[in-house]
């Protein structure tokens, strides 16, 4: 009896061993067919990561001998594996089970206070008020040599770096340090200040204002991060976040040093006033179009324009949205608290034309479009078709030759559409994909308004500032 049972056990063991081998072999075979046979299923772009996937490497004798060619094949093979995006999402789902992932404090920004620039600010205010008086009789001119006041303020600013807690404060490569924390299922940017980038930004904006003198009005609109506006003081202190209001003051003071022609649009206070409203996405680093609307209201005040009421616009509901904190930073738990992407259609026209990042022909589209049919992670591209190199819209109701040029990174996408109702021509430039001269462009129009509309985190990158420099000439 025992022997019979043993034989049965042995038979069963053999059966299961064979089953195990077969299942393994089937998995290998499926992977082989997917990865090596079904070439056409290989994706070329990752919508999840908003990037072109690795291309198959070009063969050269040198790259072959060094191993770069074969290494390129390995990268290409993994990067373009069929159904990659679905698998990445599935992996995020698995990683959600690694622990209690409601809050994810992945970074705490070390560093103390932003430079104390009160002296500089008071000089700035004093100078501005003096200028306001003198400008009635004399148009502003570019100073070839620094004035006494400028010299003294420069001195103050040059001592600023020493007052900050060493190099750790200055992210030399902010893209690497673009950290995100999750609290109560909302992603927050852990912003780090980069003085070098801030100074470069000021130089570029100032250069444009100085070059155009009285031919254009130049506005500087600095967009704080969601953490700077939404988080309570206790959390800010716990994460050692910087006071973004102070950071913005530093930017404006630096810009003022470069050119006193730049008009600063303070949106920090109005956003703080409305902080209980839906100003920023929870799963994405951008602001909502409602946040951009309040910035538009503040801009109108500075520019002497009467803004439209929010109720004047037709609302566009693109439905649920999972943004960059979910798809790029990989905080899978944010899927449990998705955003909803709302837009506001401009009143005068919703039509515009644009050059894509690398396309040579102009395409037409909607400034604000309904993205409800698109993938849940793509909804922010409903504003001026995402990061296009150059966009242009014309208001059919105006013929006064007025023009507004928005110089922006992606935060400007949902801000720019509001402006078409007030200008005959609206031009939007994404300096990351455009190198044409901004000054030459502005000279084609009659006293255009130029708005530098940028988020603090985005402009804390030296490379991005190099790109901004590429158009500021």
């Amino acid at each position, binding site marked *: 009896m025992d022997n019979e049972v043993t034989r049965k056990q042995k038979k*069963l063991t053999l059966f299961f061993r064979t089953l195990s081998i077969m299942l*393994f072999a089937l998995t290998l075979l499926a992977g082989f067919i997917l990865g090596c046979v079904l070439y056409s299923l290989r994706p070329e772009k990752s919508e999840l990561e908003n990037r072109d996937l690795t291309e198959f490497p070009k063969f050269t004798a040198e790259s*072959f001998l060094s191993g770069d060619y074969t290494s390129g094949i390995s990268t290409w093979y993994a990067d373009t594996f069929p159904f990659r995006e679905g698998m990445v999402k*599935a992996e995020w789902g698995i990683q959600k089970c690694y622990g209690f992932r409601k809050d994810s*404090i992945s970074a705490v920004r070390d560093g103390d206070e932003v430079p104390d620039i009160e002296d500089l600010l008071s000089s700035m205010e004093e100078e501005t008020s003096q200028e306001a008086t003198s400008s009635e009789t004399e148009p502003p001119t570019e100073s070839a040599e620094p004035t006494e006041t400028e010299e003294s303020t420069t001195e103050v600013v040059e001592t600023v770096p020493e007052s900050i807690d060493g190099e750790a404060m200055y992210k030399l490569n902010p893209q690497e340090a673009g950290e995100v924390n999750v609290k109560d299922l909302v992603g927050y940017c852990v912003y780090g200040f980069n003085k070098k980038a801030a100074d470069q930004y000021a130089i570029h904006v100032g250069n444009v204002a100085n070059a155009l003198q009285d031919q254009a009005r130049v506005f500087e609109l600095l967009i704080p991060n969601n953490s700077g506006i939404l988080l309570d003081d206790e959390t800010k202190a716990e994460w050692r976040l910087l006071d973004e209001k102070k950071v913005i003051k530093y930017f404006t003071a630096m810009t003022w040093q470069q050119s006193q022609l730049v008009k600063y649009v303070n949106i920090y206070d109005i956003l703080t006033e409305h902080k209980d409203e839906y100003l920023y996405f929870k799963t994405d680093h951008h602001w909502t179009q409602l946040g951009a609307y309040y910035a538009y209201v503040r801009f109108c005040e500075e520019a002497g324009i009467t803004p439209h009421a929010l109720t004047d616009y037709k609302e566009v509901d693109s439905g649920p949205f999972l943004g960059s904190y979910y798809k790029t930073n990989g905080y899978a738990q944010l899927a449990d608290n998705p955003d909803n992407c709302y837009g506001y259609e401009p009143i005068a026209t919703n039509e515009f034309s644009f050059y894509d990042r690398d396309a040579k022909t102009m395409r037409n589209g909607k400034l604000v479009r309904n993205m409800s049919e698109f993938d849940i992670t793509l909804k922010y591209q409903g504003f001026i078709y995402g990061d296009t190199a150059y966009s242009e819209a014309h208001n059919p109701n105006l013929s006064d030759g007025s023009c507004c040029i928005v110089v922006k990174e992606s935060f400007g996408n949902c801000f720019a559409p509001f402006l078409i109702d007030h200008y005959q021509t609206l031009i939007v430039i994404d300096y990351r994909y455009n190198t044409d001269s901004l000054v030459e462009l502005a000279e084609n129009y009659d006293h255009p308004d130029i708005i530098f509309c940028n988020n603090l985190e985005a402009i804390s990158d030296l490379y991005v500032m190099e790109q901004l420099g590429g158009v500021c000439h």
Partner: protein
Amino acid sequence: MVFSSLLFIFAFLAPQLLIYYLIRDIKARNIVLLVFSLIFYAWGGPMYLLLLVIECAVSWLTAREIEKTSFPKMKKAWLILECVVMIGLIFIFKYFGFFAWNLQKIFGWPEVLPEIILPIGISFYTFQLISYVVDVYRGEVEAQPRFYKVLLYASLFHQCIAGPIVRYKTVASEIDGREVNTKDIAEGVRRFAVGLAKKAILANGCAAIADKLAPTALADMGSVHGAGLWFGMFAYMLQIYLDFSAYSDMAIGMGRMVGFHYLENFDYPYTAGTVQDFWRRWHISLSTFFRDYVYIPLGGSRKGQGRTYLNLLIVWALTGMWHGASWNYIFWGLYYFVFLALERLILGDLLKKNTITKVLGHVYTLLVVFFGWVLFRYTDTAALFATLKGMFGAEYKFFSPDVGSTFINNIFFLIIAVIAVFPLGKKLRTLLRQETWRSKKYVLFNAMNVIDAVTPAALMLLSVLALVGNSYNPFLYFQF
């Protein structure tokens, strides 16, 4: 090419196994394995394939000459030639840059340091070839008459670039003739899948925590905290075992799938009760290599106490150096020499006295190993000291919310990783199998078998998901 890559699994291993099983003739099978192995090796840069072939040719020739000649002096001369060539090549490719760097630091010469790229796996296949020729010299194994078989032995992709260091005598008979049965394949499949999951899921996950909380570059240490450094180093301690043992698991598994039976390279080293015990369980093929080819030929412990410690010092300095051309590895080897010497002198007996001392022995061993890994991780001395200071609260703030958050966010993952470094899973599986086998309860018996049958494919799928889009994937031991 690394084992834990989609290209290796689906575009390399799958066709290799398919072709291999379609062929029955052992010679043809060997040629299939050789061709795939050479492609595998050349994938990282075909330039160094030549070096591998040269080393094999020299070893093949010297082994044959040693066997042919009946003059002991000639045998010795051929052995010396082999050692000089092998050690010379490894010195040039692995240590010459380090040597020149030290000369430059001390004497200011040479002005320009040579830039020599370390050929992948040189430390592994060179040691394998030395062991082969020495074993022939000792008469423990016959010289292989066919060059391609020596080349196959050294280049076999299972173990060529990250071990284990397989002795020729272990596989000599299997190169010439081997059988593969269902048990071997099933065991090989299971072992490979477990290794892949250990690497792709657990080791890479631990690496992400370690790199975040205990960065190796001084420039990245601006935001570290004492608690983060402890936690990060703990994650690194898990990572290095999971990573390296995973590679050995995959190598052993792939070997079994084609009929090779490589010896175990790890035996749950973190269960060790003494440092000496740890080294009996960690990278066994390297420890036994140094024991058999350095320590014993130097006289081992047979020539008095002083000589024994000198021999140990030499062995541990070499062990450190083998891991990398950097001072921290040498110090790491010497660090272990100190503890091994202490155990020989006094600690060893003390730690085995009773249950309490045995428990203390485990704690002591884990602490020694933990700080050993700190030494091992940092090739930059300034970063090493900053880390040590930070761990004891002297350099950075101790606690930060991101450390707590990282812990809470990964708590289940860490529990699984800790379980994976101890034999709990293995023991449980063995126990359940034995019980279900004995009790003859077929429901349980079949349930166990179903789990066993499904596990490799399931682990493969989970590993593939983890590998897709994962940027962190190098094997730590590739640099050696």
